Structure formats: structure tokens, C-alpha cells
């Protein structure tokens, strides 16, 4: 669509008639009548919140001692406290490994399923519906259902024992060594459908001509996958990985509802630790300092992700534009 707009705008720029000027003014008015409220809303809601956040991370406020506005100014002390807190460090490590692990898990499963399914076959619609169901369950529901299934003599262990014929009894939720991987598996179960639908859409959107050409030239399926499909899928792959990683970094409902950071501190990811500090230990100021650090970390990651996505989107756009141009030439 934007292609159609650009030449028109350039033409206007060379000879602006009064009519064009009034049209442009009308568009600008239209623009600000949309963006004005949006900006006002964001300023009204987000600015005070960010300001409060900064205020609390610089002032030591103890909930039961006085009101928040005459809390004591402590400079960067709280930041220092957070950064030297080994529990915070571990939370960072846990969050990063949780996000990385579940992102890779979701991607591998989602991509594999999508690769098996992108060509039409009997039963495709059925499998598609079943495969997206986990994504359509509420995360808290996933947590409680997991609790119903994962206790030590529960149905999952029982089923696996019956299938493999050997006693199989891991304590999914109470063994500190496997509690975090358990939540990771739940995250993968919950969100593999996300990678699946994105990769499926990506695979079915690949133009057929290059693959057919490669087939005629006698390339093996493996070669076609690595040499043709994968490079064409790169933008979609980035998208699936980046979005999933960001969501996994913010994962709270399952971790919290299922284990509240326990056993011990085994599942204490960043969101859980911030939540505990703020709402259970009532160290509002420490929580705020922690939030600030995490926010900065996430802003850096998000900005990097956005750069990546924009670059990929642009390369995709040029690819489609070229393809469209070629088709027009042929016609």
C-alpha cells in the first residue's frame, strides 16, 4: 500500500497547489486528532508510574514507617544492594536459562510439527485444531492442571511407568533440581503452538517456484531444506524466537501459581523474585530498584529485538516487492 502513496506525495512536493496544501493540512489535523489522545494517555498513565518507580528506587521506604512521600533519600544505595544480592544474580541466571530453554524447546517442536504439516494431507485440520489447544488454555489453569498431574504418584508418572515398564517416579514439583525444568516443560507445552502456527504460516507462505526448481535440478529434500527453505524462512524464525524469548522472560503466572519460587529458591525467576520482594517482604524500595534494573535490561533486549525484526521485515518487504515486480513483467 505504501508504494502507492509515495509517488503521490513526491508529486505534491514539487508543485504544491492551494488545494494540495489544504489537503495536507487536513491530513495533519487528522493525524494529530488520532495521535494526540494516544500520547496524552501514555503521558498521563506511564509517566507518573515511571517517575514513582525512580523515586522509590532512590528513597528507602519502609511500609509501616511513615508515608511514602517523606521516605529517606539514599541515592544509589538500593541499586548497590540489589546488584550485590546473590539471590538477584541467581534470579537473572534462572530467568535467562528458563527463557532460553523454553524458547528453544518451543521452536524445535513447533518447527518440526509445522514442517510435517505445511503440505495438505488428510487430517490436517484436525491436527491443527488439537495442536493449538494448549495455547488457548489460561496459564493459571495450566499451573493447576499440572499440579493435578505431576504429584509423585500422579497420572503422568503412572502412565510413563506403564509404558516403559520401569518404575519412573521423579518428584516433578518438589525436587529442587528438576522444579525449574518442570516449569520449562509446562511453558513449552503451553507455547509450542505459538511457534507452530508462526512457522506453519511461514512455511506455507514460501513461494513454490524456487523449491520446484531445486527439485527439478535433483536436489535432495535435505538440501532443499537447508539451501532454499531455511534462508527464506529466516525472518519468520527470528520472529518466533524473539517473541517467545521476551514472553518467557516475563513468565509469571505458571511459576507463581505452581511453586511461588519454591522449593527453596529453585524456581525463583526475576518476576517471581521481584514479586516476593515487593508484595511478601514489603521491601517496596528494593523491589523498585530491582524493577528498574530489570526494566533497563529488558529495554536493551527489546530494542535489540526490534532492530532485528525491522531489518528482517525490510528484507522480506523487498523480497515480496521484487517478486511482485517480476510477476508484473511477466504479465
Amino acid at each position, binding site marked *: 500500500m505504501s508504494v502507492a502513496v509515495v509517488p503521490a506525495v513526491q508529486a505534491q512536493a514539487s508543485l504544491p497547489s492551494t488545494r494540495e496544501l489544504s489537503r495536507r493540512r487536513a491530513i495533519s489535523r*487528522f493525524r494529530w486528532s488520532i495521535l494526540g489522545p494516544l500520547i496524552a494517555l501514555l503521558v498521563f498513565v506511564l509517566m507518573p508510574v515511571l517517575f514513582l518507580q525512580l523515586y522509590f528506587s532512590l528513597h528507602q521506604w519502609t511500609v509501616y514507617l511513615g508515608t511514602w512521600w517523606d521516605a529517606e533519600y539514599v541515592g544509589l544505595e538500593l541499586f548497590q544492594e540489589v546488584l550485590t544480592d546473590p539471590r538477584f544474580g541467581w534470579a537473572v541466571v534462572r530467568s535467562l536459562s528458563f527463557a532460553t530453554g523454553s524458547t528453544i524447546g518451543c521452536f524445535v517442536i513447533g518447527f518440526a510439527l509445522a514442517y510435517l504439516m505445511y503440505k495438505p494431507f488428510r487430517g490436517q485440520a484436525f491436527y491443527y485444531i488439537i495442536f493449538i489447544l*494448549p495455547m488457548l488454555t489460561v496459564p493459571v489453569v495450566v499451573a493447576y*492442571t499440572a499440579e493435578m498431574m505431576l504429584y509423585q504418584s500422579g497420572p503422568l508418572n503412572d502412565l510413563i511407568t506403564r509404558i516403559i515398564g520401569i518404575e519412573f517416579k521423579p518428584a516433578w514439583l518438589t525436587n529442587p533440581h528438576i522444579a525449574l525444568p518442570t516449569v520449562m516443560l509446562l511453558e513449552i507445552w503451553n507455547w509450542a*503452538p505459538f511457534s507452530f502456527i508462526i512457522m506453519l504460516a511461514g512455511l506455507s507462505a514460501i513461494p513454490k517456484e524456487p523449491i520446484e526448481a531445486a527439485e527439478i535440478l535433483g536436489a535432495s529434500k535435505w538440501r532443499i531444506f537447508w539451501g532454499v527453505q531455511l534462508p527464506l524462512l529466516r525472518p519468520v524464525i527470528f520472529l518466533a524466537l524473539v517473541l517467545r524469548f521476551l514472553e518467557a522472560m516475563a513468565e509469571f503466572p505458571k511459576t507463581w501459581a505452581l511453586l511461588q519460587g519454591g522449593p527453596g529458591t529453585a524456581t525463583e525467576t526475576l518476576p517471581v523474585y521481584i514479586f516476593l520482594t515487593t508484595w511478601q517482604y514489603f521491601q517496596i524500595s528494593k523491589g523498585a530498584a530491582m524493577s528498574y534494573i530489570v526494566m533497563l535490561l529488558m529495554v536493551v533486549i527489546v530494542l535489540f529485538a526490534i532492530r532485528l525484526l525491522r531489518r528482517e521485515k525490510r528484507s522480506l518487504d523487498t523480497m515480496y516487492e521484487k517478486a511482485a515486480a517480476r510477476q508484473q513483467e511477466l504479465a
Partner: protein
Amino acid sequence: MRKSQRRRLSAVLRYVVLSMWTLVAFFPIYWMVSTSFKPDTQWFAWPPVYFPDPPTLSNYLNVWLGAEEYTTTQYSISSQKPLISLGNSTIIASISTFLAVLFGSIIAYGVSRYRILSEVRMFQLLMLRMIPPIVVVAPLSLYYSALGLLDTMTGLILIYFITSLPYAVWMMKSFIDEVPREIEQAAEILGASRWRTVFEIVLPLVRSGLVATFLFILILTWSEYLLALIITKTQVATLPIELSKYQGSTEGRVYGRQAALAVGITIPLMIAGLIIRKHLARGFSFGMVRR
């Protein structure tokens, strides 16, 4: 091996793999549903009971209708709270989603036709969604309590509106991009204002897109947990919060009741998701997946 044989083998292999994942994907959902029909002695029996015997509706009647006669003394959680939460969830999710879709589609129209947001700004808009809510939720709750929005529907609607706006804009833009401009140009020549063009021509043309976006965002809002947990406390608890109240109660594990509640929360979501199943990829892909 001959080529036809190999093809048949790979087809069989495909069905095997897909069916295995079907079991993995479906078993937890089956377990939730079957537990919701089990009498209390079978909730965590050894060996596990795979089929409710006999199936009973008592969990549903107790949880959703507060039916006392189905309340065993040991597991009594009798109140009509879930129905109130259902009302809260419905009102909050639908109003915030409606506002986000309405406002989002106007922005999307502006972006699609007049570039009112550059591509960079469009991506920056996504930050509203991508920054984890946990980092702002504490000051937000203080700010809300100062404004008197804490524990109100308005407060939750406002924050849900803001966080779902990026998805609404992106998804609606992908629909509006597909509408040919000629009709609007005709309307413009006939002297219709831009607002009239939006409401009377463009939005009706993308009706199905509006529905898809609405349901897509409804799914996200319906299942939101953290913001609801902090901002709503007691008065306007949404369904996910209501469900989490069933845990850690002194009565011990009440799996059957939880499951009955969980099924009720999940069904609307699954229906919405299955209606828009073809559009899910579009919602998540920010214009990076074409058809």
C-alpha cells in the same frame, strides 16, 4: 527402496509423530476435564483414576452455583464468587478489548493510508507489550490507589487497553492494508470526511478482521494474571484470580473444584481461539507472515 514405498513410509512416520504430539497436547486437557467430573475420592487416588466413575456434576454445581447439597464437609467452598468473577472478567475483557480494537483500528487506518506513525514508531509501540508488566506493577498500584482506581474495573480496563493496543494496531493494519484504496478515494472525492470514511467505509469492509482482532485480544486479556492479581485484590477479581484463591486453602487439595472452575474459564477461550484459528498467525506476526 522404491520411491513410492519411501513416500508411504514417510507418510506413516508423519502420522505417528503427529499422533504422539496429539497425545502430549491433549492429555493435560483431558485430565483437567475428567477431574472436573470426578467425585472427591478419585481426585488424587492411587492408582490414578483415568475415567471418572461414576461421573458427577457435583463439582460444577458446587463451584458455579454454590449448591450446598453437593458440598461435602471436608471440601466445602460454597459461595457464588465464581459467577461474580465471570461477570467481572466478561465486562473487563470485553470493554478493554473493544476500546483497544476501536482505537487501534483508527490508528491502523492512519498508519496504513497516511503514515501517521513511521515504521520505527510502530515497532516502538510494541514496547508497551514487550516490557514485562512486573517491572511497573508496584508503582502502578500506588499511582492507582492515589487516583482511586485500585480495585476498580476502570483501572484494570485502562491498563489492559494500553497493553493490548500494540497488537490491535498491528493486526488491524494488516487487514486494512489489504483493502483497495479506490473506494475510499471515491468517497473522498464525493466529499466525505476522513472520519466518515473510516467509520462508514473502511471499518465495515474489514468486519471479519475486526472480529478476528477482537477475539485475539480477548484471549490475551481474558487470561491475564499478574496485573489482575495486583490491581484487583478483592472487589473485582477476575476468573484467573478466583481460580488461584482455591489453592492453599485450609481444606487441602480441592482438585475437582479447581478443575470445574478451570474448565469454565477455558471453554470461552477455546471457542474464541477456534473461531479465529486461521488468523492467529497474523495476530502474532506483525506483518512478517504473508499469505
